[in-house]
């Protein structure tokens, strides 16, 4: 379970940790959009340099970012291979049936590879430096205008924070259940496909039962403490933009201008 770096918060007190979670959330989305402006090696170089300059500011070891790539490694390799073999144009290096390796294909594959890695680095930066509850707060705060059109913002935010809150709990429960079934002779992750599928039942049924029990108990506990709905509630964690958030915005604007300037 320790490989699941997405969604793992690393406590710290860096400039990035202290940014308002709304800034970090919006900045990540903005970055993912703006990186599509890059379309030549100069603009990709700029994006890479900026990203690699931002990462050390978080004071989180680069190893965590590389680990963040692991779960999506297959996706990256797959996308890159498709680009290599199916893009045609430019000089042809190799050709077999409808597969061909061309200079344009290689360039595109390189660009896509860099783009995916940068996007994953940035989203890993968000999840490594922001506790999930702060993220939920940020979503609630950003969705607030939708309340005007009767969108249940507080309920959605509550669902989101409960879901996030229970991810580690359910992971712990998964480990416990796996251990209990291992002790009864189940070999998770070995044997043929059929054998592996069969190990799902003794793992998931206890997990579902526990999840439902926990949900039920949580609902009772919330009612016992007088929870009704979110309207008019004050907040324990108040979000405020600061000077750092302005700086983050400036960096992103400069990045955007740079990309527009450098792209073809």
């Amino acid at each position, binding site marked *: 379970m*320790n490989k699941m770096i997405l969604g793992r918060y690393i406590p710290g007190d860096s400039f990035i940790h202290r940014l308002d979670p709304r800034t970090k959330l919006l900045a990540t989305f903005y970055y993912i959009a703006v990186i599509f402006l890059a379309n030549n090696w100069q603009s990709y170089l700029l994006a890479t340099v900026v990203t690699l300059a931002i990462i050390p500011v978080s004071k989180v070891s680069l190893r965590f970012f590389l680990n963040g790539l692991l779960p999506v490694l297959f996706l990256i390799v797959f996308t890159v291979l498709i680009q290599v073999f199916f893009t045609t144009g430019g000089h042809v290096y190799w050709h077999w049936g409808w597969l061909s390796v061309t200079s344009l294909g290689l360039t595109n594959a390189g660009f896509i590879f860099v783009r995916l890695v940068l996007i994953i680095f940035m989203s890993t930066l968000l999840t490594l430096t922001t506790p999930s509850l702060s993220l939920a707060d940020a979503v609630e705060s950003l969705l607030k205008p939708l309340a005007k059109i009767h969108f249940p913002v507080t309920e959605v935010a509550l669902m989101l924070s409960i879901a996030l809150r229970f991810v580690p709990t359910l992971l712990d429960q998964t480990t*416990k259940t796996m*251990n*209990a079934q291992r*002790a*009864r*002779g189940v070999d998770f992750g070995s044997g043929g496909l059929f054998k592996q599928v069969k190990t799902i039942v*003794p793992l998931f049924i*206890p997990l579902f*039962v526990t999840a439902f029990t926990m949900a039920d108990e949580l609902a009772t506990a919330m009612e016992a403490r007088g929870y009704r709905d979110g309207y008019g509630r004050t907040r324990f964690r108040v979000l405020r933009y600061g000077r750092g958030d302005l700086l983050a915005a400036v960096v992103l604007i400069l990045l955007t201008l740079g990309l527009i300037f450098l792209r073809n």
Partner: protein
Amino acid sequence: MDITFDHVSYTYQANTPMAGVGLDDVSVTIHGGAYTAIIGHTGSGKSTLLQHLNALLKPTSGTVRIGERMITPSTSNKNLHPLRKKVGMVFQFAESQLFAATVREDVAFGPRNFGVSAEDADALAVQMVARVGLPEDVLDRSPFDLSGGQMRRVAIAGVLAMQPEVLVLDEPTAGLDPAGRREMMALFAKLHADGQTIVLVTHQMDDVADFADDVLVMDQGKVVRQGHPKEIFQDAQWLLDHQLGLPRTTQFALRLQQKGFKFDHLPLTTPELAQMLAEQLGGARHE
């Protein structure tokens, strides 16, 4: 079958900022045939130690010898099957491991995984359900229709059905009512009398005094003391310093001591205390 720890250390999430010590240079032997109790406050490393007993965790350094098998940091995760059969483990709130449609299937699940034929596994299920004190008619009911205490028994029957050489129990009576607790402890005592090696993690010092013949005291990932309950419970102040308690009888004897009674060693069980008091008060031999 002995289980021997030789300079075993275990670190959680090694090489990350969240690294935490689970075990710190533990060297200890759990003897075959013994009833070993492991005590220690929450977070002292008891559960980590337990998970080394059947190689659910492998040491970060040092070796664990389980019977003939050596477990080292480089042991592969494959072929641990035979160990899991030898060391049966009842986890905390074991009822949460139940999953099958009927009690019969759930109890037979362990033996089936270890290659016992369907017929023999079913016979074991019937036998073990009776042994944990459940009526025969629960066999074909869904485990989820039973009460919490009954579910716990089904889970324990499921582990017993594996016929392990060593039975490891992690707070098996937590959350049970007093009658259920007594029955459960009596069951383990009977298994031990029949030759079963038992390792019990508990916070109930009365159970330690009544049943165990060897006690490991854990603190901050280390085994700080090992000995017979008689020795361990003599040093009342030391136990309190380690956030542990005393058996009720011993507590009572300590208070009597403050009022002028004299004991050459503190009694652990009610009969023992009664005998000592009878002698001091000049009465005849207590029966």
